[in-house]
């Protein structure tokens, strides 16, 4: 099977859109309730109750923070929406990882994730930004489920040689090996011309990404 069913891509797009809208709704709810709280305090002050300045300061700080969070979310939404603009292009791995970590961070079961860059010379890879992002998203979700909400997940970027870059995912908990990679991940990896590498430990998995893959170039022609 060398194609991803269209519905899978749409499901992924829908899931991400839903999680973004949920995040935005949370942000707006906090702003709305904080404004309501300020209003409550004003009403009490009108009745002669003492108005604590520290409360007003906290509210205004909270509103500013939530607006910043909203801007960051919208920026991520925008970057994700533009990932379908080009079927294939040079993709900055750190950027796409940060985006997918940010987008999966909206999921209620997301664990803490950190990116570790072991090599200074990480060049962009020529791939499909949407499908590659989809694969990273699926892997992160799988790792969150195994690590649990209080667990940790790390993503390590390294360059074993001049021709490829290695992306290693590590979890603070053992992985259910029999379930990884699942069918969806295998299909995505196959279409992208990537291969999973078993890590010696039972808490990690690696993805070897060739800088220029013949398979992906061929795919570009038939996309």
């Amino acid at each position: 099977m060398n194609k991803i069913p269209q519905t899978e891509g749409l499901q992924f797009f829908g899931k991400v859109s839903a999680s973004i809208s949920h995040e935005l709704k949370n942000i707006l709810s906090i702003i709305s309730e904080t404004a309501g709280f300020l209003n409550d305090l004003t009403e009490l002050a009108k009745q002669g109750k003492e108005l604590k300045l520290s409360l007003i300061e906290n509210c205004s700080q909270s509103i500013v923070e939530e607006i910043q969070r909203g801007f960051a979310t919208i920026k991520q939404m925008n970057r994700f929406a533009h990932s379908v603009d080009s079927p294939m292009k040079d993709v900055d791995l750190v950027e796409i990882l940060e985006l997918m970590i940010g987008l999966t961070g909206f999921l209620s079961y997301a664990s803490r994730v950190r990116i570790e860059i072991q090599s200074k010379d990480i060049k962009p890879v020529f791939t499909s930004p949407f499908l590659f992002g989809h694969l990273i998203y699926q892997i992160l979700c799988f790792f969150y489920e195994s690590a649990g909400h209080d667990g940790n997940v790390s993503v390590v970027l390294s360059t074993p040689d001049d021709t490829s870059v290695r992306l290693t995912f590590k979890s603070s908990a053992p992985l259910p090996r029999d379930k990884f990679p699942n069918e969806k991940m295998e299909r995505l990896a196959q279409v992208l011309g990537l291969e999973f590498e078993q890590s010696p430990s039972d808490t990690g998995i690696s993805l070897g990404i060739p800088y220029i893959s013949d398979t992906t170039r061929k795919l570009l022609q038939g996309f």
Partner: protein
Amino acid sequence: MSGNEKIRLLLVDDEVKFLQIMASRLRLKSFQITLAANGQEAIDAAAKKSFDVAVIDLQMPGIDGIQLFKILKENHKDLGVIVLTGNATMGTAIECMKLGAFTFLEKSCDIEVLITAIKDACKLPLEKKSETEGKEKQPQEKSLEQKPPSSLGKIKKWVKWAKTKKSE
């Protein structure tokens, strides 16, 4: 004295900032508030202390709102449960109402709507008690209009909510 100070409220939401600001607003109205940032914290809190009403979010890590709802209702039958969620769909609303939610509200509803719902949910166990006593004395079928206010109120609220969703 508004009577609110007697109402013991359990607020459950994984969005901690939302939880804190809601608690601040409801404390101004004199409610007794306990906060839980996830399902497990809510179960632990309910095991230690009795609550009149729980206001719960649906989408939470670990034990989600529906699971929490079932656990709370199983162990605390008289607890009034209000679902307050940002993820309001007709399906989840129906599921919650079937499970016995007092009402289903969408974030960010007017605080007065929430306060009224909390107060009404507190009256429910008393109404059920008097309803049971009434049935024992006079076992006869009731028309919809004659049904206890709790059931009729729930239907009216549900219809109102459905109309709001339709107009959206």
